């Protein structure tokens, strides 16, 4: 590990706080999950062998043990999936009454609730996130999205008055590895509610919950071909995006790939929504409720190991608040529990992949190189698997790489400001614009700030709060289009004026 060489500022507080109470291991049992040896592609309502003949392994990032083999979809497989989606669209789905489509969505939502524990355990095994998060956040929200959009399916004409909403057709959806199940739900629920059929490509490091969802979809007797799931890496996603019979692309992932996608479909008439990277500012004013702000900052950057596009990775602190805040942050970091993601008391789990770990290490090394001051608490990390200590950087300036680039890891860069205007200036001084947090007791200041923030979501005295009814999306290089709420339906609908056509 590159960071091993970096001197750590261990605190003397640690010796004083020798734990007298060791929480015993409290691992969630994995017995509920029945893994197959290998998973085919989900096309036309069936699991099929890939025409490509290729398979890849997906591992548990906390142990590096292989979990299963997964089919790698080639162009021919993607073509079959798109054809299945087109056929399902033409033959059944688009003309099905909204109330009928809703029944399927409700059925899926209820199944997700019933099998929530199984999904949560599998999500944690495949992705490395703490079980308490997959159990309390990912799965409840996934089910909530299906419930929410099921409710809209037969009310589209009321949702868009004086319009004649029609489905777009076949949607190609490419999702990331940080919230595999939740992103699948965010993508599938509005598309299906609006009457589209879908080809979904999960990320190559975390395909398993999407494939379990495919089983749920089978059990829900969704007409074959309405949802197709093709697994694979970048080239599979590329084949899907470039397929000529796809009407709409929805992508969540890195800005880099988002740009490639936008270039590749330029001039094709395909619709596109992108939800990309971020470098969110979490802004703490002197009058903030300090202890809750600390929790918000911790949650903002260490939730899901910082693998969150809207993570509050830049902490902007009003200067008089800097000392007390840093003291409290360091103290709070000592209590964070890093380790086995399946343990119910784990706060920070495993980094999703070796590649991501290397990226985090590289950027953290650059931070030290550029003169920022690093702080990491002492904590024992497991020997196998991919791990990174929660990390704070102070003495960070706007020009440092750690203040500009998305690290997508548990690394917080702390910057100070003097006035609200300076806070706005610094917060907006980034190519990204996905989210922001404001911590102050002053309501008028929250509104003043929110008006001026170039961010799709602005949280006030909280962070990383999601709700299916609330639209989510970016400004600038964080993408365009909104997911969630009424706005989340628009990308999946042709909204011509009534009486048109």
């Amino acid at each position, binding site marked *: 590990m590159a960071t091993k060489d970096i001197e750590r500022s261990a605190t003397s507080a640690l010796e004083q706080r020798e734990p007298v*109470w060791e929480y015993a291991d409290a691992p969630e049992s994995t017995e509920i999950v029945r893994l197959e040896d290998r998973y085919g592609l989900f096309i036309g309502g069936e699991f099929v062998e890939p025409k490509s003949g290729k398979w890849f392994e997906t591992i548990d990032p906390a142990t590096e043990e292989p979990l299963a083999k997964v089919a790698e979809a080639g162009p021919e497989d993607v073509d079959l999936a798109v054809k299945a989606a087109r056929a399902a669209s033409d033959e059944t789905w688009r003309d099905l009454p909204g109330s009928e489509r809703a029944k399927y969505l409700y059925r899926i939502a209820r199944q997700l609730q019933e099998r929530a524990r199984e999904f949560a355990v599998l999500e944690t095994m495949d992705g490395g996130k703490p079980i308490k998060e997959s159990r309390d956040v990912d799965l409840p929200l996934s089910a909530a999205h299906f419930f929410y959009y099921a409710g809209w399916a037969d009310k589209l004409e009321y949702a868009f008055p004086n319009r004649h909403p029609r489905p777009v057709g076949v949607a190609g959806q490419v999702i990331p590895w940080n919230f595999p199940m939740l992103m699948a739900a965010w993508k599938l629920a509005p598309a299906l509610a609006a009457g589209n059929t879908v080809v979904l490509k999960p990320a190559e490091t975390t395909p398993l919950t999407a494939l379990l969802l495919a089983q749920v979809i089978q059990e829900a007797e969704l007409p074959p071909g309405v949802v197709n799931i093709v697994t694979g890496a970048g080239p599979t996603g590329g084949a899907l995006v470039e397929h000529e019979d796809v009407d709409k692309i929805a992508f969540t992932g890195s800005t880099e790939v988002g740009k490639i996608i936008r270039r590749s479909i330029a001039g094709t008439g395909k619709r596109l929504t992108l939800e990309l990277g971020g470098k969110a500012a979490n802004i703490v004013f002197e*009058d903030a*409720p300090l202890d809750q702000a600390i929790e*918000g900052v911790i949650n903002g950057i260490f939730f899901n190991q910082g693998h969150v596009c809207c993570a509050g990775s830049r902490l902007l602190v009003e200067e008089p608040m800097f000392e007390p805040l840093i003291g409290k942050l360091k103290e709070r970091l000592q209590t964070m529990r890093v380790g086995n993601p399946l343990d119910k008391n784990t706060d920070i789990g495993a980094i999703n992949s070796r590649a991501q770990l290397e990226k985090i290490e590289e950027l953290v090394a650059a931070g030290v190189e550029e003169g920022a001051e690093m702080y990491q608490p002492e904590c024992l990390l497991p020997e196998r698997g991919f791990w990174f200590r929660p990390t704070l950087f102070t003495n960070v300036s706007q020009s440092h790489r750690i203040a500009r680039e998305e690290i997508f890891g548990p690394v917080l860069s702390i910057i100070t400001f003097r006035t609200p205007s300076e806070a706005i200036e610094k917060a907006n001084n980034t190519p990204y614009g996905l989210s922001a947090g404001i911590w102050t007791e002053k309501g008028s200041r929250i509104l003043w700030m929110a008006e001026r923030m170039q961010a799709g979501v602005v949280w006030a*005295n909280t962070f990383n709060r999601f709700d299916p009814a609330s639209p989510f999306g970016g400004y600038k290089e964080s993408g365009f289009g909104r997911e969630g709420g009424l706005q989340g339906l628009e990308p999946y609908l042709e909204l011509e004026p009534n009486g048109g056509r």
Partner: protein
Amino acid sequence: MSQAAEIERGRPGLALYAPKEAARLVSRVTPVDAVGLEERAASLAKRSIKRESKLWALDLAIRCMDLTTLEGTDTTGKVVAMCAKAVRPNPLDDSIPSVAAVCLYPHLVQVALGQLKGTDVKVASVAGSFPAGLGPLGARLAEIREVVDLGAHEVDIVLNRSLFLGGRYAECFEELVAARDASGSAHLKVILETGELGSYDRIRQASVLAMASGADFIKTSTGKIGVNATLPSALCMMEAARDFRHETGHRVGVKVAGGIRASKQAIQYLVLVYETLGPEWMTPDLFRIGASTLLNDVLMQIDKERTGRYQGPDYFTID
């Protein structure tokens, strides 16, 4: 308060601020966001405490317990029985520790002292016109002095919410300082009655006022109103105690009381202490749980952890 008593206390313990500073002290207390505080408390309540760590916590819960009876119907017989239970919670099991203290009305202090002679179990008496705390100041202070003279080791009084909520912080503070003086070498616990304070901001302000006046403990509730200790209000007080320690170097204890009947709740409060105040607070000197029926549930859970089976309730004595 005599000089000798002060030396005996072995720590300064007197007011850390002048009364005229009280208003300023209250006004600069950091605000509390209710949503965030409740979320944090709820997330800590989900910690999964198993096996040996659970046994350790249950043992500590007994050692930190103020076994309490505060009824108008309390009699000598009731208190004699409770004291026996306090010393040996499970007569068949020597490994079960005694509780920290018994907590009762002044009238019964002498009975308890007689019963507990030669044991480490302390006697705590409520005083100061418990539970409203609105008797004449002179009478309230006299009551405190009297129970201390009788030999009570600890005194639980209530914050004057009439003065506090009325914004008369200096007077409120002066009363607390006077109570501190009156309690002499006894440990003073100030009950904030959090269920009546209306907001977490107020709970935090009251905590600071009480700690600054020299209280040894701040305590959530009397147990006499509808809303007793809750996890968020206790967390709010613990955060105040933690910051007070950073600012002044003084460790002030926290006592949660009222409505804590199940082992699971006791463990949740211990998790709050552990992750907010740290291991050094996990001692009866700095953390207490005021309860009456909790003890038997803890005994039952200890048996269950050890044997893998639940015993029927009749295997645990009711006192």
